[in-house]
């Protein structure tokens, strides 16, 4: 496995742990469909959250959130819709939203974690 994929995988691991500690329940990891892949799908009693995780070793190529541009946000919403179409039973009237988690640091386990709640539609 390529080095960068390993880094991403470790980052997602760390993000999932962080979300669980914050009281979220993880429903899916790396859910795939024709549109692409969702890193994490988590939920609380009221909200269903599609999470995009970005991991960077440093800020040499910009902050992780800078990679989430309007095209990416639009794609995340399409994926969220695709996921909810495929899992109507799990939705149960929950409000859908998109979150982003950015990890900056050489080791994802100790990297700086930033959690953006409710990323808006472009």
């Amino acid at each position, binding site marked *: 496995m390529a080095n960068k994929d390993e880094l991403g995988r470790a980052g997602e691991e760390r993000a999932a742990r962080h979300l669980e500690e914050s009281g979220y329940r993880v429903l899916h990891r790396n859910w795939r469909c024709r549109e692409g892949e969702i890193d994490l799908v988590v939920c609380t009693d009221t909200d269903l959250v599609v999470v995009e995780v970005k991991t960077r070793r440093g800020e040499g190529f910009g*902050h992780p*959130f*800078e990679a*989430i*541009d309007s095209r990416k*946000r639009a794609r995340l919403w399409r994926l969220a819709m695709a996921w909810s179409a495929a899992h109507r039973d799990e939705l149960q009237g929950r409000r859908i939203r998109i979150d*982003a988690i950015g990890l900056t640091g050489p080791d994802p386990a100790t990297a700086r974690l930033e959690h*953006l*709640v*409710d*990323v*808006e539609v472009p």
Partner: protein
Amino acid sequence: MTVARTWAVALVGMVGELVEVEADLSNQTPEFKIIGLPDKALAESVRRVHNACANSALELPRRRITVNLSPASLPKQGSGFDVAIAVASLATEVPMDAASIAATVHLGELGLDGRLRPVPGILPSVVAAARAGHRRIVVPFANREEAELVDGIEVLGAVNLAQVAAAHGARVEIPADQPVSAGDVEQPAADDLDLADIIGQREAVDALVTAAAGGHHLFMCGPPGAGKTMLARRLPGILPDLDDAAALTAASIRSLSGLPVTTLSRTPPFVAPHHTASVAALVGGGTRVVRPGAIARASEGILFLDEAGEFPANALDALRQPLESGTITIHRAAAVAEFPARFQLIMATNPCPCGDYAVRGGSCQCVPAAIRRYLGRLSGPLLDRMDIELRLARVSVAQGVARRDGLTTAVARARVAAARERAARRLSGTPWRLNAQLPGTWLRDGPAAPPTLVRRPLDAALHRGALTLRGYDRVLRVAWSLADLDGSSQLGAEHIGRALYLKKGIAL
């Protein structure tokens, strides 16, 4: 703090409008947006601010920053908002003194390296800020002398963005940058033109002194080599210094034109546009940014149109309205701008394209139609607005070899100053200072109106149709200047006679 505020100035013509720059930080993916009708240069501010902050070791928040320029409906142009945008954006996250930022006006463009670059229009902007009650202003280092011309304002001439942030209490290291200079400041050449250089032409020199004393418009017609341009160039030297308000207006216009302003020059401006000038070049214009034209730059001074007969007729006629009103209003889709246009118009022309028409000893080659077309560019309504119409002849041999015993600039200047002081004393209690500003009703029916007997030749000219009523008033104005030069407190028949001669070349 997620919302930070500071101030900048938008210029509409010469009037500065205070613009509140507010930056809001919202918890969204990084984005930097400016709203509030920015033009292209202002919209590009995003990149300049971004890189300037990065290169000043000041980090912009990695979230969505929305900068609003309020009033949002006022169109804004130019790069002068960069510093205000950068400071407001930084203040949303970097710990800084919010009260200090909100009380300060920031002007200036940012370079990518974080240094402040000079912008045009600093002086009118600072004046607007002072009028709005602001006491502290940050300007680029190269503009600080210009900003300091306004009284009662604390000016910080900043070299780079880090210095501005530090002034508001941010903990940042200030790099020792070389300040961006305003470009080469032209040193005004020492004015060594003396009226005594003019040989002969006593009549013309007297007319010039009269024009200077009352601020009258002067029209000169004569063959090439008669000294028309020489005369006009010597007019600024005999005019008195500008007062505070006039000097500030002249400097503001200079600043708006992008010329460097370091001191409040007391010398009246002298603007001599080339005869290929278009209407827009003369009156001012532009599609989005309305720039002052030659007549605005000549405000409080002299507009000299050499070879007036070569100017396009429509350009000349565009001068008629500002000549009457003293202001020029330019209407564009984006804005309506008003500039001052209180200038003294000096026009010089040849009698015909070859210049020899009606000259003793000259043989004119022009066909009559060419002569008509040439002088036809000077429309009747425009000539009616000239106070003094002077016909110059070539200097004869006898005059040419004469000793230089003419009027010197120093003497003429003293005479003009004395005449202006006399006029100001007579006009104390009225809003006018110069004879050229007097309204017709005051001249004809005011407290100092001449008795019927004295103005009889003038009435006769009006009855004959040789004068319009506007021309009638203009003759009275020039007559007052002649009386002021003579030290007389009343208009006499000789003053009116000479004024009538200067206006129409009509001997009594």
